[in-house]
């Protein structure tokens, strides 16, 4: 198995790595513009801390102390821990951003990666709808800056379906909630029916699960009071999103219920045509931080960077070429001249490689030959070093 890799792990070669770096820069600068500061969590956590992901989906191992550790399955867990430990007293709002690889266990032969980059933000300590609108607007803005067009934002509220489930007898609630989160809408409805839910309520629940529109009025009839309140929340959210400039892309979708059980309010996902997986998901999870000992409101999102990258590449996107790379053919026999010319060019801000490059990774490669300390052959003409610098830096932002 020489040279083999464990399944689900791969080498990211230079062209793709440059593209991912461009995405990382764009996303992190967008997050920074909304006041989010970077957090760099460790790669490894205690396995028992990873409460946000099903334990069968975490990659686990024992260390020499006999403690069960997990490679971080997401960053939300780390954020919750950091907030509970380091910002325990802070009542103020925290805005944290990250771009980091995460690790998920996957069944073999499923074509799934076990390590991939996730980018996202967490907004801690703000229970208002303005905070929900802020993170949704930030997500839309960040994806648009990356060049992602034609993205739809589906917005739901876990309180809508929960309102129906809360009316069931206690022993039926867990199973119905689990069915809803696993996407088994048939099971949700049939469990509710079996537990004695009235036919008009069932019809209202089914309408909610099927409905996707910019309008919510049709869902109010026969819905429980708690579900009505979830609809009120979305009705209040809509003008906020419009004011923030993302009114056009949103659809209300009460059938969108994330798989993880910790969401408590507004939830959302971003989808693009012809990609079977969402680009990003997020929502309000006011209950999670309490599990780490800090009862704070929280909302945020995670972007699956490989899916974003795939969507961008499918749409014909390329990483910005950046400044050109000058490949210097050495002056035969005079390495000192070559090195001094290279140093002068680099001091002027030009990227220089000496000799040859086998992997240009999509950069704009120009070639020149060193004549002596002060002269280069560039584009077939022997020129003074200063003239070459002037040509190569022309049009560059200073």
């Amino acid at each position, binding site marked *: 198995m020489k040279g083999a890799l464990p399944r689900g792990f791969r080498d990211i070669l230079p062209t793709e790595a440059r593209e991912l770096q461009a995405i990382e820069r764009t996303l992190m600068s967008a997050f920074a513009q909304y006041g989010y500061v970077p957090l760099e969590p460790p790669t490894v956590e205690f396995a028992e801390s990873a409460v946000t992901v099903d334990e069968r989906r975490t990659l686990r191992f024992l260390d020499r102390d006999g403690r069960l550790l997990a490679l971080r399955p997401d960053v939300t867990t780390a954020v919750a821990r950091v907030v509970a430990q380091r910002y325990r007293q802070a009542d103020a709002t925290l805005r944290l951003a990250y771009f980091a690889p995460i690790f998920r266990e996957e069944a073999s032969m499923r074509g799934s990666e076990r390590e991939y980059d996730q980018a996202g933000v967490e907004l801690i300590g703000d229970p208002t709808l303005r905070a929900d609108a802020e993170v949704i607007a930030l997500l839309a803005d960040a994806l648009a800056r990356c060049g992602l067009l034609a993205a739809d934002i589906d917005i739901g509220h876990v309180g809508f379906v929960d309102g129906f489930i809360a009316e069931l007898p206690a022993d039926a609630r867990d199973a119905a909630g689990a069915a809803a989160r696993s*996407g088994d809408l048939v099971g949700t409805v049939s469990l509710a029916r079996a537990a004695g839910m009235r036919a008009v309520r069932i019809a209202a629940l089914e309408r909610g699960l099927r409905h996707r529109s910019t309008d919510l009025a049709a869902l109010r009839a026969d819905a429980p009071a708690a579900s009505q309140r979830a609809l009120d929340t979305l009705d209040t959210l809509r003008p906020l999103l419009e004011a923030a400039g993302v009114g056009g892309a949103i659809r209300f979708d009460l059938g969108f219920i994330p798989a993880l059980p910790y969401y408590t309010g507004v939830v959302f996902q971003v989808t693009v045509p012809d990609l079977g997986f969402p680009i990003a998901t997020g929502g309000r999870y006011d209950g999670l931080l309490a599990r780490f000992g800090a009862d704070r409101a929280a909302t945020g999102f995670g972007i699956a960077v490989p899916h974003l990258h795939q969507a961008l590449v499918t749409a014909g996107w390329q990483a910005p070429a950046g400044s050109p790379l000058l490949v210097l053919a050495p002056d035969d026999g005079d390495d000192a001249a070559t090195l001094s010319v290279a140093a002068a060019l680099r001091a002027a801000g030009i990227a220089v490689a000496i000799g040859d490059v086998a992997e240009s990774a999509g950069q704009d490669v120009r070639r020149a030959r060193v004549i002596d300390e002060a002269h280069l052959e560039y584009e077939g003409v022997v020129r003074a070093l200063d003239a070459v610098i002037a040509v190569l830096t022309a049009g560059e932002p200073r």
Partner: protein
Amino acid sequence: MRPLRIALAQGTLLADTRVALAAAGFATDALADGGRRLVVPGADVEYVLARPSDVPTHVAHGAADVGIVGKDVLLESDAEVLELVDLKYGRCRFVVAAPTDFIDRSLDEYRHLGSLEVATKYPRVAERHFQGRGIQVEIIKLSGSVELAPQVGLADWIVDLVSTGRTLKENGLAIIEEIAVCTARLIANRVSYARDRERIAALASKLEAWAAR
């Protein structure tokens, strides 16, 4: 707008699936028996014919927008798909069965050894069921003719899918417990269901009305 892509389980479900789709107003002539094409193009819908156990995979990855497949396949798969409509046909049951003559003996053995051997083609379903019951079992995965296992001493019990139960009876097996009743389901990719809601919800409503006839 590109056609809606529907993954269909080949095999026993396909005949009823054709009837259901025809009732919902889709052309199904090209799905007639003997057709060899695995992708059947059309204006509104495009069919993909796949092995039943592959249908959830096609749909989970978005290779197909929706699919029609048995609940038995969904229970054994852990693909992340949305289950939209119970189509009511293709009814069968997951059951635990044991040799008619030896039910008492295998229970004695269980009390003695604390574990039973269970042969099945559906290890996930079997494992989940016995875990839920708090019964310790060793699962033996077979690819076919599971009824054989108790007769030749390979396993004490079996977990299998039955429609009439005749095969069990002919092999001297009796049903001890029913795990789940399974029927055909309309499933959807999560993103397709979001983005293509109008078409998929319309399909779901038509099929639901047909199933409730």
